[in-house]
């Protein structure tokens, strides 16, 4: 009987720690450290879909991973761009900053050109220009 209690406790601990390993979902309203509001984000794919906007000419370079953290009171973002084609791709990107009310927190950024080698990943990172920026979108367009 005593062993049964111990087994149950071990199982409960294991289950508890198993749930705790679901990284990025520890804080409500955040996924992988990124603000998500009341959106339902269950995976990295969901997060990327929610945060990435394609404008103009579509590109085959796609963000595959995105993580956020805080630098003081500023939002810091890392986004991994993947080019799985056999040719070098040129894209441009910018971040759009949104405040708590859903309004623009900063003026439109300049497009930044980028070259991504064939079958390669490239990490772009940025820091929010102001602490009013509570959310963001990564905007991508092809330059081919």
């Amino acid at each position, binding site marked *: 009987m005593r062993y049964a209690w111990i087994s149950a406790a071990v199982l409960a601990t294991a289950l508890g720690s198993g749930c705790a390993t679901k990284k990025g979902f520890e804080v409500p309203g955040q996924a992988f450290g990124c603000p998500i509001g009341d959106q339902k984000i269950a995976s990295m794919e969901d997060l990327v879909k929610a945060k990435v906007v394609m404008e103009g000419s579509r590109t085959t370079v796609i963000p595959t991973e995105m993580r956020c953290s805080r630098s003081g009171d500023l939002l810091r973002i890392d986004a991994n761009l993947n080019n799985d084609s056999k040719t070098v791709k040129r894209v441009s990107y910018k971040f759009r900053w949104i405040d708590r009310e859903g309004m623009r927190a900063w003026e439109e950024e300049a497009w930044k*050109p980028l070259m991504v080698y064939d079958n390669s990943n490239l990490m772009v990172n940025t*820091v929010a*220009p102001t602490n009013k920026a509570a959310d963001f979108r990564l905007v991508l367009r092809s330059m081919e």
Partner: protein
Amino acid sequence: MSIFRYVPRVAVLAAAVALAAGCATEKTRYGDERGVETVTNEFGSTDLQTIAESMARSMQTAPVIVAGNLPILTVQEVKNRTSEYIDTRAITDSIRSELQKGGKVRFAVDQSGLKQQTGEIDRQQSGYYAREQSVERGQMVGAQYRMEGNITSIVKQVRDTKDVYYKFNLQLWNIRNGLLEWSDEKEIRKTTTRG
């Protein structure tokens, strides 16, 4: 006689050129001031915007900026060590604007604006203005940190290819103790090929 033999041909050619010039219509349109500009591979608006944004964002995360209670900065010279003319003041102005809007720093009057600043104080102290509304001498606030930097370039050119590499370096120096508190770089490479 021999000269006059070519006159009709030259006249026809001149008329053709004049017609062509006349027919070439000129069109002016507004463009995206924040779009990627690749007209030539000389230093351009995209380079200026990219450098300013990158430097300002990086500087905002410097420990002295994060920890400080609105530290006061002054802008010093950014040396142009490239082979082309670059208005480095435009770069520092953009960095200053972005930082100022970010609300984490304040700027004291810099060397280039000092003459206008003291000139205005002197004017108000000239005796023509109401004393109680005039600013007093000795009230200006000195900066705690100075921002300076340089831009360098490496240009390589062969027959059909020109490669330009820019490196912009910016530093934040503590004026009181002379310590380098923050420094960062932004690199840009542009290659132009013909044909």
